[in-house]
């Protein structure tokens, strides 16, 4: 058995505390941006339009902006906490340090499930997109999508296994192309360059304005989350960025600004071309609204660009999800919340390789055996539980370690207003989800109660109770 010690006080991130092989600090703010926006941008290409089906075009816009407020709060709170608790695991690690072990265990599971389910959903979508390309290129019959679904997951797992720098540089390139494609579509179809094909007045007046009234607006909030779901994933890069205090807030805030622009442009071009009844039916109507808008433009160049953008956005999301789910799982293993075996780092590639491999068959199982809407709903609900935890987390963080008591990379303004706004919007969204997916919501809450009991009565005895608290902070106020 070979053994070696790369411990060095001169190598950044490899400290004098026993780490022989740790995650590699090689990322910059652009990679953080690529991770956050990469996971989310697929929501602009498909999925958000279910909000139109719930309440019409205006309802989708209201949901888009209120969800935008929710996620701006998420980004602000995340930026403060994670630039201070700069370790892999993101919100799991935050919960561990600030709230307690049971909360941390639950948040770790929320994160792993949210990202693994989203990865499975993206792989299903990639398989579907390739079958559409096959049909458009003259293939007759039903293409077997399974090899493409499996290839998507295994290729991206391989990329993640081989190193974080290549993984997120790949994400940076394909996410940037997907984002530019939305800008080009907006410029080309709204009359800024060339003639406008927009028909907002005709498509959004009369009964089409708010077809189900204000309850439709409320119901649309569920799918309004699609525009931004996953931006909180930037925190998982905390242990691999060169300068957490600078890169994490910068990358996260730039990410939410990018998404607010992309979401608004997406809504504008799609509702201006596609009737709400067609746009709002994401199964039998418009599966990929931006691509459908490009097709209606009649431009072959736009059709290709948005087709490539849709595929790239899907792959970028799956790629970022593998990165984030494996970091959350790895961190839980490292602290013995799960078997310590998962806390291993590859000595050459410096990635959490066992966690990456372990989650591959789970993603494959859901991608090949579970229906897309159920997979996505489970992902959204797990994400929503994370967002509900975050306001409570920041309130406790500020109380236990008031301003000035520890060094923060970023201090978000107007505290506690963002926390209360986020909590309120989460409550509204839970109600919206309950309207459409009440059974799944209850089933999922039941699942987390059962695993919490398992953790409390069995698993907690194995946790590294003292060693898990690594931050060199003073004792919390009041303790």
């Amino acid at each position, binding site marked *: 058995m070979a053994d070696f010690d790369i411990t060095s006080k001169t190598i950044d991130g490899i400290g*004098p505390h*026993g*780490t022989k*092989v*740790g995650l590699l600090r090689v990322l910059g703010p652009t990679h953080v941006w690529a991770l956050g926006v990469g996971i989310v941008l697929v929501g602009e290409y498909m999925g958000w339009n279910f909000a139109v089906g719930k309440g019409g075009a205006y309802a989708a816009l209201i949901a888009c902006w209120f969800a935008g407020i929710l996620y701006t709060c998420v980004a602000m709170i995340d930026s403060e906490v994670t630039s201070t608790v700069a370790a892999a695991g993101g919100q799991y690690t935050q919960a561990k340090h600030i709230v307690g072990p049971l909360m941390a265990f639950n948040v770790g599971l929320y994160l792993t499930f949210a990202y693994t389910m989203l990865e499975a959903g993206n792989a299903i979508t990639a398989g579907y997109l390739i079958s559409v390309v096959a049909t458009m290129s003259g*293939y007759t019959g039903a293409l077997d999508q399974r090899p493409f679904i499996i290839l998507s997951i*295994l290729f991206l797992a391989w990329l993640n296994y081989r190193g974080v720098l290549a993984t997120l540089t790949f994400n940076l390139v394909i996410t940037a192309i997907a984002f530019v494609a939305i800008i080009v579509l907006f410029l080309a179809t709204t009359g800024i360059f060339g003639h406008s094909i927009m028909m907002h007045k005709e498509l959004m007046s009369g009964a089409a304005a708010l077809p189900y009234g204000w309850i439709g607006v409320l119901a649309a909030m569920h799918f309004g989350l699609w525009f931004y779901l996953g931006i909180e994933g930037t925190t998982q890069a905390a*242990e691999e960025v060169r300068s957490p205090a600078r890169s994490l807030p910068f990358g996260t805030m730039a990410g939410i600004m990018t998404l607010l622009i992309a979401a608004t442009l997406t809504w504008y071009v799609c509702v201006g071309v596609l009737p709400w009844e067609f746009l709002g039916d994401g199964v039998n109507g418009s599966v990929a609204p931006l691509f459908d808008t490009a097709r209606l433009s009649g431009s072959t160049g736009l059709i290709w660009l948005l087709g490539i953008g849709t595929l790239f956005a899907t792959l970028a999301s799956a790629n970022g999800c593998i990165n984030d789910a494996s970091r959350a799982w790895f961190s839980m293993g490292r602290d013995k919340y799960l078997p*310590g075996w998962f806390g291993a780092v590859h000595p050459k590639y410096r990635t959490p390789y066992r966690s990456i491999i372990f989650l591959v068959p789970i993603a494959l199982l859901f991608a090949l055996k579970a229906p897309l809407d159920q997979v996505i709903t489970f992902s959204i609900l797990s994400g929503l539980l994370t967002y509900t935890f975050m306001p409570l987390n920041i309130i406790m963080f500020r109380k236990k370690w008031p301003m000035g008591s520890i060094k923060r990379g970023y201090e978000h303004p107007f505290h506690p207003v963002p926390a209360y706004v986020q909590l309120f919007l989460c409550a509204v969204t839970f109600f919206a989800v309950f309207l459409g997916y009440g059974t799944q919501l209850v089933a999922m809450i039941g699942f987390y109660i059962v695993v919490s009991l398992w953790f409390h009565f069995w698993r907690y005895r194995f946790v590294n109770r003292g060693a898990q608290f690594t931050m060199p902070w003073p004792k919390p106020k009041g303790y």
Partner: protein
Amino acid sequence: MQTWDYIGYLAWALSAAFGLYLVVDWIRTDTTYSEDVLTSSREGELEAMTEERKG
């Protein structure tokens, strides 16, 4: 047989290759290095060092 059927077979082959790589490298790594080295990662190293320098 159409072109897309061949592309499907290629996707199966590539999937098998990536999967095989992952499993082979995983086993090779686990048998080459000690568990003590592989699981030696500790969180918060950067912060600890920063605090020590300040102190």
